[in-house]
């Protein structure tokens, strides 16, 4: 199933992205090649030292919306601009885009060559008598294939993120694996395991009750409950390593692994610390109000996950994947 989900994410992503780009191209969403009329309130005129005109670009909201064929734009468009007349006689314009800029311009700027500015050329410029305002007709830089560019960027960025996350795990992994190793050698894990045997033997019938995997799983689940994410992942990976020692068919997940994974993905935690912290940061009067509801929600997820994992593992198609050379494997003794 993972194969299909993975493929679907990519194929749907590419198709939708390409579709949107074709749609943009056909409808000319960004009005490539069509000049837009605007007024510039001139604040600084060129001097011997400075070759630029500076001022505010003003476009009435109605004209802006009509030009781009949108309805959602804010009031009057007012942006600082810089115009430069080159020696060739051509005048270029540069519009820095910020938070207050209209959505469509922000999107165009993100896809422009500079990343945060709209660049263009001035087709015609007509000054008022006192030179305080100018009527300009602008041709903005061409914008196209927005989504395909975004997809390329996302693919490269996320590949980078994956490596950053993995490498970031090294230190904390080493720390916890070291500490757990001490507990293992000291026989502490056996004590912990014995206490919870009634629960674990039901959840993981294939894992011998005194196997080190059980202790690692218990510690991982406990760390998750307490919201100790830094400890939970290394302990969980330790548990996976131990469970893999019982795996008769390397590369294929065992029933115990799937059960353990589902408990982890359901994410039952007594204090949803991240959500509470963000609520507090957003000025909530009662940030902790979601503790109860989150426990309920994650409880639902855990119960539903455990029931479905136990039902699904009996399905022939998932049972078949466990067979080694077409035979059921010998029961493992750990």
């Amino acid at each position, binding site marked *: 199933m993972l194969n299909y989900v993975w493929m679907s*994410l990519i194929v*749907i*992503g*590419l198709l*939708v992205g390409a579709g949107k780009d074709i749609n943009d191209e056909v409808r000319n969403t960004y009005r490539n090649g069509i000049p837009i009329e605007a007024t510039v309130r001139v604040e600084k005129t060129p001097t011997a030292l400075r070759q630029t005109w500076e001022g505010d670009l003003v476009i009435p909201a109605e004209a802006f919306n009509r030009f781009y064929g949108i309805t959602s734009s804010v009031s009057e468009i007012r942006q600082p601009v810089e115009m430069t007349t080159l020696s060739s006689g051509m005048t270029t314009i540069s519009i820095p885009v910020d938070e207050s800029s209209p959505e469509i311009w922000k999107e165009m700027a993100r896809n422009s060559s500079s990343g945060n500015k709209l660049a263009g050329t001035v087709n015609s410029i007509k000054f008022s008598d006192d030179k305080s305002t100018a009527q300009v007709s602008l041709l903005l830089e061409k914008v196209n294939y927005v989504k395909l560019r975004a997809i390329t960027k*996302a*693919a490269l960025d*996320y*590949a980078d993120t994956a490596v950053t996350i993995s*490498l970031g*795990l*090294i230190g904390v*992994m*080493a*720390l*916890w*694996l*070291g500490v757990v*190793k*001490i*507990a293992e050698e000291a026989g*502490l894990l056996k004590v912990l395991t014995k206490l919870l045997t009634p629960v674990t033997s039901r959840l993981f019938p294939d894992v011998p009750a005194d196997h080190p995997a059980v202790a690692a799983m218990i510690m991982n689940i406990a*760390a998750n409950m307490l919201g*100790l994410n830094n400890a939970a*992942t*290394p302990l969980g*990976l330790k548990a*996976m390593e131990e469970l*893999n020692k019982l795996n008769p068919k*390397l*590369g*294929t*997940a065992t029933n115990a*692994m*799937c059960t353990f*994974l*589902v408990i*982890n*993905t*359901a994410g039952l935690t*007594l204090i949803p610390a*991240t*959500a509470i912290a*963000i609520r507090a940061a957003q*000025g909530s*009067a009662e940030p902790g*109000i*979601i*503790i*109860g*509801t*989150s426990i309920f*929600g*994650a409880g*639902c*997820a*855990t119960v539903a*996950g455990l029931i479905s*994992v136990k039902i699904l593992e009996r399905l022939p198609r*998932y049972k078949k994947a466990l067979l080694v050379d077409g035979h059921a494997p010998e029961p493992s003794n750990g």
Partner: protein
Amino acid sequence: MVELFRNIINIISVAAVPLMFFVFVGWGIVRKVKVYEVFVEGAKDGFHVAIKIIPYLVAMLVAIGIFRASGAMDVVIAVLSPVSHLIGMPPETVPLAILRPLSGSGSMGLMTELMKVHGPDSFIGVLASTMYGSSETTFYVLAVYFGSVGIKNTRHALPAGIIADIFGMLGALFICRIFFGV
């Protein structure tokens, strides 16, 4: 009551790690384990495990990145809108429900955004933070945990994980409607 529970859990959370170190190492010394040597021996594996995860995590995150950047989320939301309408889920929170199992940082950003727009104590704000707290980033956990031991055939883990996510979101919606419903 909630406050007391929260305080107790907070104390346990803060004390858990130092206490664990103390008990584990202390127990080791009592049992005459060569603690330093054993620690180093165990810690040695940390590097290998982290490196082993990389290809699995790259594969997973890149696919999710492509999906998100393409704007395909809007298509999924449109397809699901009759369902969300039927169960009384506010349309604003549907993207969060879909993104939650895919991306931890993405869904955190979305939750923050919803609270910023609607207020953290509004129904949508409470529901969004409950939804965030009711599940884990399933695809990330799957890639990391299975990746660390080289599992390629994940069998029924993903369907069960997704069923768990769906029930987590439904449970969050149900309980929020009972307690904070409008």
